[in-house]
């Protein structure tokens, strides 16, 4: 089961190492990771995606809380969040392939952010499903390089 955990930490050197170290020594694999400052520059948010059983997630959250620099932890409910990742895809593309690629890119509301004689670069933001779909469609053209950020997520506002 994929779980998304959002961790607020003190923005200090070594904190990320402590958190990732905790995961590895307790035997958990981090699927994706994103780190950045929040509106308060003293506090950073770490968004982690982890595959684990419910019981293990509970234990890992408790262990995370024991780290002195960890301020708050939220396990996000996947049905009530907006999740995004950003992916840059460099494709091998000559002039003949470009129209078709452009068409796909438009359908996905992605952007072409760089064009060269034999390649171009596509930028897409979205959830994993959308990103994966685009990746699959672009693969036949020849992906030269693919760079993705870790997943970030935010819970939706209350609906009542």
């Amino acid at each position, binding site marked *: 089961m994929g779980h998304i955990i959002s961790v607020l*930490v003190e923005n200090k050197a*070594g904190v990320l*190492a402590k958190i990732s170290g905790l995961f590895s020594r307790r035997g958990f694999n981090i699927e994706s990771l994103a780190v950045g400052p929040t509106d308060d520059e003293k506090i950073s948010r770490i968004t982690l995606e982890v595959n684990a059983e419910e019981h293990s997630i*509970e*234990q890992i959250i*408790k262990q995370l809380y*024991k*780290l*002195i620099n960890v301020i708050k932890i939220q396990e996000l409910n996947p049905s009530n969040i907006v999740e995004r990742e950003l992916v840059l895809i460099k494709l091998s593309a000559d002039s003949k392939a470009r129209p078709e690629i452009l068409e796909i890119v438009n359908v996905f509301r992605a952007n072409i952010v760089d064009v060269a004689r034999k390649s171009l670069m596509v930028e897409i933001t979205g959830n994993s499903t959308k990103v994966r779909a685009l990746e699959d469609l672009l693969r036949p053209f020849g992906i030269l390089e693919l760079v993705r950020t870790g997943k970030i997520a935010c819970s939706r506002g209350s609906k009542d």
Partner: protein
Amino acid sequence: MAKITGAQMIIKCLKEEGVEVIFGYPGGKVIPLYDALFDSDIKHILVRHEQGAAHAADGYARVTGKTGVCIATSGPGATNLVTGIANAYMDSIPMVAITGQVSRAQIGTDAFQEADITGIVAPVTKHDYLVKDVRELPKVIKEAFKVASTGRPGPVLIDIPLDVTTDLIDENFKVEINLPGYKPTIKGNLKQVKQAAKRIAESKKPVIFAGGGIISSGASDVLKKFVKIAKIPVITSLLGMGSFPEDNQLSLSMAGMHGTKYANLTFTEADLIVAIGVRFDDRVTGKLSEFAPNAEIIHIDIDPAEIGKNVKVLIPIVGDAKIVLTDLKNEYENYIEKKGIPDRKDWLTRIKYLKNAYPLKYDRNSSKIKPAYVIEKIYELTGGDAIICTEVGQNQMWAAQFYKFTQPRTLVSSGGLGTMGFGLPAAIGAKIGRPDKTVIDIAGDGSIQMVSQELSTAVTNKINIKIMLLNNGYLGMVRQWQEFFFKRRYSQTCIHNCVDFVKLVEAYGGVGISVKKKEEVEGAIKEALGINNVVLVDFWIDKEENVYPMVAPGSPISEMLESEMLEGV
């Protein structure tokens, strides 16, 4: 405003934290710190190896309840502390370790004697700091002591680059501490405490499982009061020994791999376990799926991560053992006042029967020196009033089994990490902490050789500890496993006659007494206790004596190996 160096600021801050003694070893990167210490009235005990400093600080902390402090230089000095820090971490002992570090500009360059000590100790400390600015020192030291000594205690390491200790700072410079992510829960949820009281009153076969948390929170008196009212038998973990007097008829001593048979059977028959300040370690539970099959569990612990980690819990209560137990006692009293005192005559009769039917045994008629006999004599001749430190292995288990611990903070033993070589330096720390007490290290000939250089520390500082060495010429606990599970193939466990321990202690200026006959045991212990010096008594015990009972690894604790020879003794 007068300026002082970072080193002087460190000493000033340590004084403000009430530090009276430091265990340590100087080196290149802590010379300024030791220079500042030279002018201070804080006592410093120079050990012979940094591991000894960490263990001594640990032993000091265990007997006093104060935070132990140790210092080492950068690189190898710091890495030599690691075992001692890990030991304190596993047993939740408050400790502040200060290490020197190469100057800021050299960090990350593989400079001489550089080690990334904060990186190395992260998994075995409660918290760590690398101080990069002299102005951080007052705040960091204050935070370190707070983190080490509150909540679930543990070691904190402060790594201080050389040039931070020589930088100047206003002597009154202060910054408020700031720990936004650190708020240990102290008071237990009263609704859950009420539920627990009710469940305990309804239970037909309850048992209390008391751990080191009782001792670190100072809850022993409350526990005794609660037991007196509720009449519930008490089992302890190794680290919980002394939290409840073992001469009380409701004490069932220690459970687990080498626990008493009656404690293990009580767990197995109980319908309710009230666990306080324990973490259900595998050495206690044996095969987890068959541990206490009939029992529901109320788990009280200050660390929420311990609750539900190993066993399923019916009522979790996060909080300080003393505060929660006080509330629990009051709620229990209220409950039975309204609903009447529960009738547990059958259960208490059963407990009494188990205690009588399955006492700890050894061959009392043997002409050889039995280790259990030595421990019993030590108990008798000290009136049970000594502080007992142990090494790790058979000596430790015999000490736990045959010495009756009646007071908290009287057993100093490496539980979680099982660190051979802990006992001697820990005894040094314990004696510094409690100079009024007789401090005994019950040692094994394997363990003590890991740290025997600390005999020098003890003798030169007139720290008159008594070492009772149970010498069997083996790495006995491993040999026992080889006997049981590896067809007596004693691979690398025989260390017969490798050193004359009497001469060894004499070489350091202490007193050695050799005991090779059973009749000499009592006299030797008396003599040792009477000598105003470090004394090592070398007991040549029965070489292949085993620790019984024993739960084989992977077995449920209800299935214990016992010596057939001992039937009927």
